[in-house]
């Protein structure tokens, strides 16, 4: 257990160094190095200095001033990249509350746009990002160092930002911003466009209007005489980079028909398009290849989550097929020569990202291609391959050290560096030691969840408040959930080192539905997902003092 001691000591050192940690020089020695850009080095050294990768090689010596980490038995990867996520972005805003008499209690934020909220391509993720977001810890601990993040709502979701998952200030996070325009085939409640029909016509009109405004602004700039001054329009102007193919346009599309619609739109306006999600992208592989449209491919593979109620219809054959076929999609896309990078699509547990990547490998994807799709391949699609995505001298020191099989259940991330800054890792969850000689494990590795929490259940468009109480005993807990839907007893909840989970039946509009809840508690903050036959919704909240 030398390495454990070392880790503990090292954690203390990095704490001590505080914010200037990335001034430290590190050398990871004797490790297997997956450079991704070149051949894998079976045993070598990675040197990190001043936030950059200083040297990589089999015969590189650790510099005298470096903290040396013994990487024996470990594998070094470039930091993993999540190519499409909402990390760091605020939760979906609650719909405006209306007071008595139909007056708005909280007026919507003022905007200088001519377009309603949700149809504003000028919105930027960068402006809403929260530095030091607690979600960063979770995904960084899993090995992610970089993410392309965008807003959660609207038809235009906001221009995405490529961020490094470290730093308490937004300016410290940004690697590239804006990266891409993001479009989802959503609607806007209560006003045009309120249907999918209108979504397409509204988008189409805006792209035509942007083309025209750009043309007449040029015309006016060249010679204003005799021309009525064209009005400025920040929303349309924000589309210029998209219509000029200077900025990618990412369409969120999972089903085959959504993907076809996105491809038709990309073709209609000659956009530099990408697909995000891409659950059924393999069915359109030939066209994606022909149009050179890459896919930011979700590893949030579908699977059945809840026991159906006795009255429920059986799952449709389409659904059963979808669940069986989705893990084979990445291999099929690769075989067809479609470029893709993996994204989490806010998977329920970030570890599912790697486990599902493993399923993609079982489903026919080459293992190296799977690693590439979360490192250099992603960096290429996000336009940051000159800085990130591989272990090459001169690139940003986003480095992850892994023990065990990256796609296996026993994977453990031992070290994470972001911009050369070391982040202390939690110990891996201990397995029950049958010899009883483990010493110290067991209960110490179970999270503490007891308490009363003020919860917001983030049902799209109608967030619901609830109060949850957990009474923990060892690795189990009981408790209650109280909301406008009544009071529900929780029994047989489970607690692990990672978080908690329980199943319950709740009265929903007069009928009982089964829900499966899982989440994590971090300090006073609680968050997670509720799965039900109606779909999955996130929840979050805080512990009452």
């Amino acid at each position, binding site marked *: 257990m030398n390495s454990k001691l070392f880790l503990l000591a090292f954690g203390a050192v990095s704490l001590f160094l505080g914010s200037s940690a990335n001034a430290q020089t590190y050398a990871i020695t004797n490790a297997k190095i997956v450079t991704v850009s070149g051949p894998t080095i079976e045993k070598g050294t990675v040197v990190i200095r001043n936030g950059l990768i200083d040297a990589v090689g089999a015969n590189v010596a650790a510099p005298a001033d470096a903290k040396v980490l013994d990487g024996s038995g470990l594998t070094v990867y470039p930091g993993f990249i999540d190519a499409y996520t909402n990390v760091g972005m605020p939760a979906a805003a609650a719909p405006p509350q209306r007071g008595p008499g139909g007056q708005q209690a909280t007026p919507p934020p003022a905007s200088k746009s001519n377009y309603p909220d949700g149809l504003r391509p000028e919105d930027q993720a960068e402006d809403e990002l929260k530095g030091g977001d607690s979600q960063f810890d979770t995904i960084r601990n899993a090995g992610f160092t970089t993410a392309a993040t965008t807003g959660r709502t609207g038809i235009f979701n906001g221009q995405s930002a490529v961020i490094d998952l470290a730093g308490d200030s937004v300016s410290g996070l940004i690697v590239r911003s804006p990266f891409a325009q993001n479009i989802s085939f959503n609607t806007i*409640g209560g006003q*045009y466009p309120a249907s999918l*029909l*209108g979504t397409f016509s509204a988008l*189409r009109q805006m792209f035509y209007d942007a083309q025209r405004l750009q043309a007449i602004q040029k015309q006016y700039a060249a010679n204003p005489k005799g021309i009525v001054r064209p009005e400025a329009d920040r929303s349309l102007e924000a589309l210029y980079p998209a219509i000029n193919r200077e900025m990618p346009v990412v369409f969120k599309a999972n089903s085959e028909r959504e993907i076809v619609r996105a491809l038709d739109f990309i073709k209609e306006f000659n956009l530099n398009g990408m697909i995000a999600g891409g659950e059924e992208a393999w069915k359109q592989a030939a066209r994606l290849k022909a149009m050179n449209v890459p896919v930011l491919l979700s590893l949030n*593979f579908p699977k059945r989550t809840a026991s159906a109620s006795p009255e429920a219809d059986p799952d449709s054959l389409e659904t059963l097929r979808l669940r*069986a076929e989705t893990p084979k999609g990445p291999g099929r896309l690769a075989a067809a020569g479609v470029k893709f990078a993996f994204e989490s699509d806010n998977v329920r547990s970030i570890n599912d990202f790697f486990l599902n990547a493993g399923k993609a490998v079982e489903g026919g994807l080459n293992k190296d291609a799977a690693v590439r799709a979360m490192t250099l391949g992603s960096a290429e699609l996000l336009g940051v391959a000159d800085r990130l995505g591989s272990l090459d001298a001169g690139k940003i020191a986003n480095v992850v050290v892994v023990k065990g099989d990256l796609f296996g259940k026993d994977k453990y991330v031992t070290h994470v560096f972001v911009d050369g800054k070391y982040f202390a890792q939690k110990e891996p969850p201990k397995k029950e030691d049958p010899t009883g000689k483990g010493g110290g494990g067991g209960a110490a590795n179970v999270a503490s969840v007891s308490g009363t929490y003020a919860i917001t259940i983030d049902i799209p468009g109608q967030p619901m408040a609830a109060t949850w109480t957990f009474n923990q005993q060892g690795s189990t807990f009981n408790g209650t959930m109280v909301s406008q839907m009544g009071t529900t007893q929780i029994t047989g909840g489970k607690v692990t080192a990672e978080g908690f989970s329980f199943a319950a039946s709740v009265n929903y509009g007069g009928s009982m539905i089964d829900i499966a809840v899982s989440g994590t508690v971090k300090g006073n903050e609680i968050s997670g997902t509720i799965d039900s036959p109606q779909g999955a919704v996130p929840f979050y909240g805080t512990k009452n003092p």
Partner: protein
Amino acid sequence: MRKAVVFLLMASMLAISPALILGQSRTDILIKNATVMTAVKGTLANTDILISNGKIAKVGKNLAAPAGAQVIDASGKYVTPGIIDCHSHSMLDAINEGTYSVTSMTRTRDVLNVTDIAIYRALAGGVTAANLLHGSANSIGGQNTVVKFKWGHPVEDFPIPDAPPGIKFAMGENVKRSTSFGPPGGTVRYPRTRMGVIETMRDAFLRARDYKKSWDDYKAGKIKVQPRKDLELEPLVEVLEGKRLIHAHGYRSDEHLNLLLLADEFGFRVGTLQHGLEAYKIAPEIAKRGTGVSIFTDFWGYKLEAYDAIPYDAYILWKNGVNVSINSDDDERMRRLNLDAAKVEKYGGVPEEEALKMITLNPAKQLGIDKRTGSIEVGKDADLVIWNGHPFSVYSRVETTMVEGEILFDRAKDAKMQQDMAKEREALEKLDVNKAPGSGGTQPKIPSERRRGDRDDAEFGDGGNQ
């Protein structure tokens, strides 16, 4: 286990292309010895039809089968043209954009869902083509798509390329009541009366006329700056130019007459009056203008403006020389349009062939696709239905439906397919991903597009008429 994997592979191919399994793509087909109801040249006993390259190549007796042709013995069976439904909302992921009273910028083409099982069921009822319309929440609704039901094909194969474009108009209660849309405390939508509806239409055409003029001026060099491309007004310019057909939902004859007068004022022809349960009251006025009427045979009374209907509507219109079609406006009724046609023989005594025309050639004419489909004539697309008995009998069923010579429904193959799918389901349900677990993963989304809230009938409870 290995067998299961192989089976899954086969099943996934099934999922990719039902056409591969079902389709007899472009193989010559000879239908032998059928009773052929041509819908234009009478009913021919003991007649053969040769289908070549997707077209009807020959109709006659004792035709020889070319080498490699599939021969279907249709002794004792009936063949009709494929049924055409002039008013449908099948395979649409959204039906109404209810926010504005003029939503001519929307296109049903944008929201087609080629996996909608209603397509296959329609084929099983002998329907091969349909007019996919926007809903009736607006004075001027969205642009239509006229499709052939090419089940298993990619979406781009569905629209009939040479069908003239159309657009939905609507008048009466649906439009007026749609004014109750909007956020609580927000403003209600104009118009709220029948006079407001016709005014909204007139206003839109005046705007379209001005819009066209601005482009004409620009092209003539009278103005320097290119006008805005206005997706709302462009289709209305096409209406004014006679290039786009109006399909106008309405019930009261005064309202439909008002629309005809508005069209006179702007100088275009209305394509069809949809529903038109009172159209018999203005039959001569309709006939004079060459406008079609697309009706239900005997479905009425589901709202106030639908009370003044009679089952003789089709007969009176036909007697007055109006082109009448019978539509479904409904996935269910679509599968039994043959029986709705049979009823007009009973009420008033429309002759058999004229009744058949009301679900075949007449809607084809209303939609401008009669050059290629709607009757059994040499040179037309082989959109054909083989029935096991007379199509106007409640005991008859469709045995085979083909679209452009491709068999897309076959009752015997369907039975086999259902067995295969049951086996496939059994294999799939054994997979871990399909078992109910303790936790993990996300439930696949329930397709939001099938929410009934999108549909007029759910919003208005008016018995499914849109």
